[in-house]
C-alpha cells in the first residue's frame, strides 16, 4: 500500500476543507483593510486560477499586511491587518499543500514542507493568529503535514531528519501524544513497535533505520565547564516543594524569593520526554523546521542587539550545539517566547506549578497590571553565556529549570534607587523596568559614584539547577546568566 492511498482522499478532504466556521471571513474585522484588498481576496478565493499565480497573489497581499504590521508599534497594529495576515497565510498554506501533493521527490517534498511551515508559523509569530479557530486550523494542518511528509519520506527512502526518532507511519497525531520515545537497538529493531502495520511497511522502515544517518546528533547537551560562582547571600532554599497552604501564607507575609528543589520531578520534560535530547526536541518541532524568534547579541540593552526568526534546527545547530558558528562570540537566545502556544504538543511535557493558582499580593505601584486569566508561560532556551540584564517584571514568577544551570541574582524593590532604572529611551520605549547597571561590565558601565551605591544594595543569589524552581515576587529585580546549555520555563501570574 503506497503512502498516497493511505492519505487521500480522506486526508486531502480533511486538509482542504477545514471546519466551515473557521474559513468564513467575517468581513467586519477585515473591513478597514480597504475595498481593493477585500475585492482581491474575494476574487482569489471564489474564482479558480492557476495555482502558481494564486500563491503569488497571496504573497502580494501578505507583503501589504507585513508593511502595515511594521507601520504601527506592536501593541497598536489594527486588528484588520493581523486578521488579514493570518487568514491569507492560512490560504497560502492550503494552496501550497495542494501543490505538495504533486511533488514526487524527497528533496522537493522537504522544501515544500519547509515553505508551508514557514508560512503558517509566520502567522503565529508575527500576527498571533487571531480570529475564530485560526490557531486550531494551523495546528491541524501542521500535524497532518508532518504525518504526510514522514510517510512519504519513509517510503521514498529520504532521511526525514538527522537522527530524529520517529514512532510510526501515520501515527503522528496519536502515538506521539503518549510521548513514549523509543530507543533504537544496534541492529535497528525497535522496542515496543505498535502493531497493526503490514509486514512490508515495517520491514522497509527497519531497514532504513539501520543505515546510520550522515551525521549523528549528540545524545544530550554537554554541560559546560563553567564553574558555579561562589554564593554569599543564598536565596532561601526549600529542599522539597512546600504545600500550597504554606506558599499562600508565605505570599501573604514575607513574599520573598524561594529556591525550590525537586519541583519538576513529575514533568515529562525531565523524565520520559527528555528535553535534554536534541533529537527529541527536533521531533517535537516538525523535524526542526518550526520557526522560532531568536535574540542575537549580548543583551537587549546593547546597541548591536537584534532579533531573527529562524528554523528551530538552525538555532540548535548554530547556537546550541556549536555556539559561535555564525562567527560572532555572542549567544543566540530563544528568549521569552510563547513556544507552548505556538507548539501546543510541547505543553504536554510540562506541568503548571500549583503555586500559579495562589493569589500574590499586588506588586509595587509602578508594576500594577490587569488580572491575568491564566499564567503566561514562556520558554527560555539558549547556550551557556546568555544574559538577561537586571530588570523587573510586573508579575509573580516561578522560573522552572528543566535543563542546565543558571546563576540568578535578586534585588528587592526597596533597593530600586540603588539600581538606577532607565527612563524612556530612543524610539519612545519605556525601559524603566531595566537597570542601567551592566553586571557583566567593568564598574557596571556606570559612573564611579553610581557603582559604589550599587555595591551597597542588598541582594540574594543562587545557582538554579536542573529540576529546581525559583519563585520571584513581582517587582523584584533579577539578573540571570546561564552557566550551561539551559532550558527554562517561566510562569507569570497575578
Amino acid at each position, binding site marked *: 500500500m503506497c503512502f498516497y492511498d493511505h492519505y487521500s482522499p480522506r486526508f486531502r478532504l480533511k486538509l482542504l476543507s477545514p471546519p466551515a466556521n473557521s474559513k468564513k471571513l467575517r468581513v467586519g474585522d477585515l473591513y478597514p*483593510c*480597504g*475595498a*481593493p*484588498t477585500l*475585492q*482581491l481576496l474575494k*476574487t*482569489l478565493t471564489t*474564482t479558480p*486560477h492557476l495555482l502558481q*499565480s494564486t500563491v503569488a*497573489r497571496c504573497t*502580494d497581499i501578505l*507583503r*501589504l499586511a507585513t*508593511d*502595515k504590521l*511594521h*507601520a*504601527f*508599534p506592536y501593541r497598536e497594529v489594527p486588528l484588520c491587518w493581523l486578521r488579514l495576515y493570518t487568514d491569507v497565510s492560512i490560504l497560502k498554506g492550503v494552496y501550497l499543500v495542494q501543490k505538495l501533493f504533486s511533488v514526487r521527490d524527497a528533496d522537493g517534498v522537504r522544501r515544500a514542507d519547509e515553505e508551508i511551515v514557514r508560512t503558517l508559523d509566520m502567522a503565529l509569530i508575527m500576527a498571533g493568529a487571531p480570529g475564530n479557530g485560526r490557531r486550531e486550523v494551523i495546528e491541524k494542518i501542521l500535524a497532518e503535514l508532518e504525518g504526510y511528509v514522514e510517510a512519504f519520506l519513509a517510503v521514498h527512502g529520504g532521511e526525514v531528519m538527522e537522527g530524529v526518532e520517529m514512532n510510526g507511519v501515520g501515527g503522528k497525531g496519536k502515538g506521539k501524544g503518549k510521548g513514549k520515545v523509543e530507543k533504537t537497538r544496534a541492529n535497528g529493531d525497535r522496542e515496543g513497535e505498535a502493531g497493526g502495520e503490514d509486514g512490508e511497511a515495517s520491514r522497509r522502515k527497519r531497514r532504513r533505520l539501520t543505515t546510520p544517518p550522515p551525521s549523528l546528533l549528540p545524545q544530550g547537551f554537554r554541560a559546560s565547564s563553567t564553574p558555579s560562582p561562589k554564593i554569599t547571600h543564598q536565596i532561601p532554599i526549600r529542599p522539597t516543594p512546600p504545600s500550597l497552604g504554606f506558599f499562600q501564607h508565605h505570599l501573604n507575609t514575607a513574599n520573598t524569593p524561594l529556591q525550590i528543589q525537586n519541583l519538576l520531578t513529575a514533568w515529562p520534560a525531565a523524565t520520559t520526554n527528555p528535553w535534554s535530547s536534541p533529537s527529541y526536541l527536533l521531533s517535537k518541532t516538525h523535524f526542526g523546521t518550526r520557526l522560532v524568534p531568536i535574540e542575537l547579541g549580548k543583551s537587549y540593552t546593547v546597541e548591536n542587539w537584534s532579533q531573527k526568526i529562524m528554523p528551530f534546527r538552525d538555532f540548535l545547530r548554530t547556537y546550541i550545539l556549536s555556539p559561535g558558528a555564525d562567527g560572532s562570540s555572542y549567544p543566540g537566545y530563544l528568549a521569552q517566547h510563547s513556544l507552548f502556544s505556538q507548539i501546543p504538543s510541547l505543553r504536554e511535557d510540562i506541568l503548571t506549578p500549583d503555586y500559579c493558582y495562589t493569589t500574590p499580593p499586588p506588586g509595587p505601584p509602578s508594576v500594577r497590571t490587569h488580572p491575568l486569566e491564566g499564567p503566561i508561560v514562556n520558554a527560555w532556551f539558549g547556550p551557556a553565556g546568555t544574559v538577561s540584564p537586571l530588570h523587573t517584571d510586573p508579575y509573580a514568577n516561578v522560573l522552572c529549570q528543566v535543563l542546565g544551570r543558571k546563576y540568578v541574582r535578586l534585588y528587592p524593590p526597596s533597593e530600586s534607587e540603588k539600581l538606577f532604572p532607565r527612563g524612556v529611551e*530612543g*524610539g*519612545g520605549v519605556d525601559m524603566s523596568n531595566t537597570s542601567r547597571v551592566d553586571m557583566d561590565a567593568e564598574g557596571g558601565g556606570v559612573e564611579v559614584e553610581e557603582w559604589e551605591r550599587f555595591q551597597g544594595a542588598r541582594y540574594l543569589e543562587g545557582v538554579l539547577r536542573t529540576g529546581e524552581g525559583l519563585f520571584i515576587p513581582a517587582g523584584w529585580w533579577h539578573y540571570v546568566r546561564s552557566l550551561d546549555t539551559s532550558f527554562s520555563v517561566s510562569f507569570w501570574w497575578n
Partner: protein
Amino acid sequence: MELIAFGFNAHGQLSPSTNPLEIPEDIRIPQIIASASDSLRVLFTGWSDTLQVDGNLRLLGAASANTQLTIPSTHLSPITSAFGDHTGLKGVTTITQAIHLLQHYGTKQVCFGQRVEGIDDTSHIAIAGNGIVAAVQGDEVLVYRSFSAFLLKNARQRWKIAGGGVVGLHANEGGFVVLTREYGGRVITWGDARHEYLGRETTAEAPAGAPGIVDALDGIAIARVGSGGWCSAGVSVERDVYVWGGAGGDVLAGRGEVELVQEPEEVDGVSVGDGHVVAWAGGKLWGIGRGENGQLGKEGGRWRGEWREIEGVCRHGKVIRDVVCGGWSTLVVCQRQEV
C-alpha cells in the same frame, strides 16, 4: 506623448484584464498603456488605482471596478495633485485649494464630488501608511490623526513653514517628507521614531515626531523629493541624487544617514514608490529597491541593492518627461525630444 507602465497590476490599475473574473498579470516588460498628442500627466498611482489626465480624466484600478473609465471633470478646477492610501484614491486638490473626494468607489459610477465645504486653503495633502494625514494649509503644516479628523478640522499638531512655502509634500509608511522653498529647496522629515529612516538623527531636541531638517542636505538646493514605504530620495538643483531609508532588513543608507548616489551621476528627477526608487535622465531610467512585481522592470527581485538601468522604457529616441511611482508600480511619461 506615451505613458509606459510596469509593476503591480492585480487591480488592473495599469492595464485592465479583458476577462472581468480574472486577476490581471503584473507587467514586467514596460508597456505603453496610453498615448496623447498634447499633454499627458499622471496624477496618482497607488496600491490599487491610477489617475491620469490628458484633456480627459482617466481612472483605472479598483476605483473603477478594475476597468478603465473616463470620469467627468468639468466641475473641477485644474487639479494640482491627488491623494489616497491602501483603500484607494481618495481625492484631489485643485488650484483653488479646494478638495474633491472620490465617490461611488469601486463602481462604474465613480466620480469626483463637489468641493468639500469649508476647505479652501489646502495646497497639499498626503496620507501616511499608518493613517496619519499631513496637509499644507495656508502657511502651516497641519497633522491629523486620520482623514476623518482632517475633514472635521481636528488637527493634532501644526507648524509654521518658514518663508516661501512648500514645493512638495510626500507621505511614506510612517511619516512625511516636505520640500520647502527656503534656501533654494530645504528638506524636512518626521515620522515613526522606531525606524531610523528620516535621513537625520533623532534626539530629544529634534525628535522623530516633529518636523526636523535633514542636516546632511542643509546648504544643498534640492529641486525635488519623493517618499514611500520607508525610502526617500531627493534630487538637487545640481542634478545629484540623494537617498535615505530602506525596506525590511535592506537599507539605502546608514541609520539616520543620507547617501549621495554615485551612479547615476546626473539626473533630471527621482520618484519613490512603496519601497522602490527610480531616477531618470534623458531617455534613461535607473531603479533600486523592491522589484517583485516588475516595478523595476523584468529583472527586479525582492530587493535590488544597487542602482541598475531599467531598459526598454522609452523607445525610438524618446526622452522621459516625468516618472510617477506609487505602491508597487512605475509610470513613465515619454515624449519626442524637442528639437
